[in-house]
């Protein structure tokens, strides 16, 4: 499932008349969409290069954390890890291929700078990596484990859900593995197909004791990652791999944190609330603009950031939530495994989201 977007209509301040639109012979969006695509595909001989389904919108330069430097997402992760290794002598980073810098270059230069007993490779064994990480954390060191792709996290699922999440609870607070942070590249990337594109945060959202965090860009990534590392609970930090190189922002060089379990309202609006995380935030930014231009609909955009425990208050402002004028809509990938060749049709791109808004305001 790609990042879901949920729509709410805020009844309290709505200026839109409530109109009931008969659906008549209007076919479901799915099949309309299918027809359109088939027309597009016919007659094309050469393979087109697939463009990304989103445009990254950088955040404004943060001024409250000191001097900044231009960094992309993987560089901001490296910076966060660099700060951690510098400030915390017990911190260790391990995972598959992290020593040379990692398959996405998130750990470049760290082994040379901090030594091979602090940045080291593990063999190919995810269950072992996480189990080992839990042990390191329980014994008091700060453990930062990398799982090479979120799709490979499942052998470690038992360790994460049954061991890490429950450690504090089952020992009556005698022990905990709060020093553990697990990082993994996450989400669709355009050509990842079944096993390099998954977004498994939902599987972990039902394990109390864990925190699950997903940033939307470099500035968020560094701040949230540093928060996860500092947080006294085991955290899973998913990094949208499609943005590793594509997302560039001015990121503070020093250490800073962005609070967990706090959603961020990126844009205020009065008609529809859009909630997303990770890459989808940028898709919805465009959708919000489209909705304003074409439909005159004012959208509020919220980046959830922390999936578990999530910021219920910000998302469901009580008086609005109890006065919705249309059911909540969820726009996400189809209920199929993440496809190989069909990826462009599978992901909830801006047109699908825009169409959903149109349907909602006409509910």
């Amino acid at each position, binding site marked *: 499932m790609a990042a879901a977007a949920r729509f709410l209509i805020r009844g309290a301040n709505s200026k839109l008349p409530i109109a009931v639109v008969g659906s008549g012979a209007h076919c479901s969006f799915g*099949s309309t969409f299918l027809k359109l695509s088939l027309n597009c595909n016919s007659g094309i001989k050469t393979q087109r290069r697939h463009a990304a389904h989103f445009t990254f919108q950088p955040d404004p330069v943060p001024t409250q954390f000191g001097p900044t430097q231009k960094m992309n997402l993987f560089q901001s992760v490296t910076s966060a890890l660099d700060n951690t290794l510098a400030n915390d002598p017990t911190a260790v980073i391990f995972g*598959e291929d992290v020593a040379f810098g990692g398959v996405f270059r998130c750990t470049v230069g760290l082994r040379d700078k901090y030594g091979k007993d602090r940045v080291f490779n593990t063999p*190919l064994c995810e269950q072992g990596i996480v189990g080992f990480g839990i042990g390191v954390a329980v014994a008091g060191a700060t453990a930062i484990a990398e799982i090479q792709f979120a799709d490979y996290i*499942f*052998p470690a699922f038992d360790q994460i859900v049954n061991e890490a999440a429950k450690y504090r609870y089952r020992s009556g607070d005698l022990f905990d593995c709060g020093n553990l942070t697990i990082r993994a590249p996450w989400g669709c990337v355009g050509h990842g197909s079944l096993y390099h594109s998954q977004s498994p945060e939902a599987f972990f959202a039902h394990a109390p004791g864990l925190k699950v965090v997903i940033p939307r860009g470099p500035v968020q990534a560094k701040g949230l990652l540093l928060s996860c590392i500092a947080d006294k609970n085991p955290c899973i930090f998913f990094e949208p791999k499609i943005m590793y190189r594509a997302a560039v922002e001015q990121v503070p060089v020093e250490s800073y944190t962005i609070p967990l379990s706090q959603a961020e309202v990126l844009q205020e609006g009065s008609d529809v609330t859009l909630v997303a995380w990770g890459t989808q935030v940028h898709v919805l930014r465009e959708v919000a603009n489209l909705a304003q231009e074409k439909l005159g609909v004012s959208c509020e955009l919220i980046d959830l950031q922390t999936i578990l425990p999530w910021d219920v208050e910000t998302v469901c402002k009580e008086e609005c939530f109890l006065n919705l004028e249309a059911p909540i809509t*969820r726009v996400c990938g189809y209920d199929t495994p993440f496809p190989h*060749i069909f990826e462009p049709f599978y992901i909830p791109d801006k047109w699908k989201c825009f169409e*959903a808004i149109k349907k909602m305001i006409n509910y």
Partner: protein
Amino acid sequence: MTSVWRFVSNALCRITGRKVAAPTVSEGSTVVVSNSLNEFTTRASFDIKKCDLHGLEAGPPLKTELSRDEGLRFYRTMQVMRRMELKADQLYKQKIIRGFCHLYDGQEACAAGVEAAIDPSDHLITAYRAHGYTYTRGVSVREILAELTGRRGGVAKGKGGSMHMYAPNFYGGNGIVGAQVPLGAGIALACKYQGNNQICVTLYGDGAANQGQIFEAFNMAALWKLPCLFICENNKYGMGTSVERASASTDYYKRGHFMPGIRVDGMDVLCVREATKFAADHCRTGKGPIIMELQTYRYHGHSMSDPGVSYRTREEIQEVRSKNDPISLLKERMLSSNMASVEEFKEIDIEIRKEVEDATQFATSDSEPPLEELCNHIFSNNPPLQVRGTHPWAKLKSSS
């Protein structure tokens, strides 16, 4: 006189792999061989490397016989695999193949040797470096290339891609490292349960050898004496990590501990064949599972996004290519025993080139699978199931 010539030219066609019934081969036309059929050695005996043994008193034989026919078939099979992989490399660089592509060139002797020692009714399962095995298990080059390019003519209807190709008794094609090994043990259990005297060949790599589930599978297979032939294709590198840096013990054939094991030269197709015969026999006679470690090498990087030279030197790759290439080894053996001529090999090469070109033509011109396929085959269901779409108004039908 006519019938004699036809007989001779037909025989020549059979050996060189040309269509026997082709009416274009007429008497007296310049066919491949300049020598007449009688001058070639039809059978020769070769020494093969001794295999290291673990938990076994005796191993595979040190000598093997190869017939001219078999030799040319091996050559053909390996050369097809080589050319197919190189074509896949080319198509990937042209962005006609996208996604992930793990190439098998350098390891051809493993696939060819294993297949020669088992029956088509035996079962085989491997990891993601599967194009070679897909071919040896009976899928045509055109279906493989079409699957890589994601077209409907592909062996998995274009829905699987490089890592998910299947065929009768060939269970893929598996993306998650090590996940196929317990599956292989299960298939072996089914063979034993059904009493059909078949075995399951379960392959994995040196990287996967450190996965926990492999050892779980070893235990089950040995405990229940399953007819499972575990094969570790040790190509010295698990993606970018050399075996010394990943494994406490690089004797992968000993990793089964209580399970017997053999270490085999995986660049020599005859060695692989003999060892596989020995091991398959071991399984079939009810002695239980066995591990084979094939020492081999891959020329390409781990996948197409890996140049393959940041963790090993170009000189190392060159050395293996010049001294230990499986196809060259076989060719030299056959030439030095006068089992075939240089021209014959050239002819085979030309044919194979054409076959791969035709397959490429198909793979690049075939149409993509219809959009309805996006939802098909999620479950087995009749009538078609409604599948949730991207939002509540989008509904698609899943047929299976």
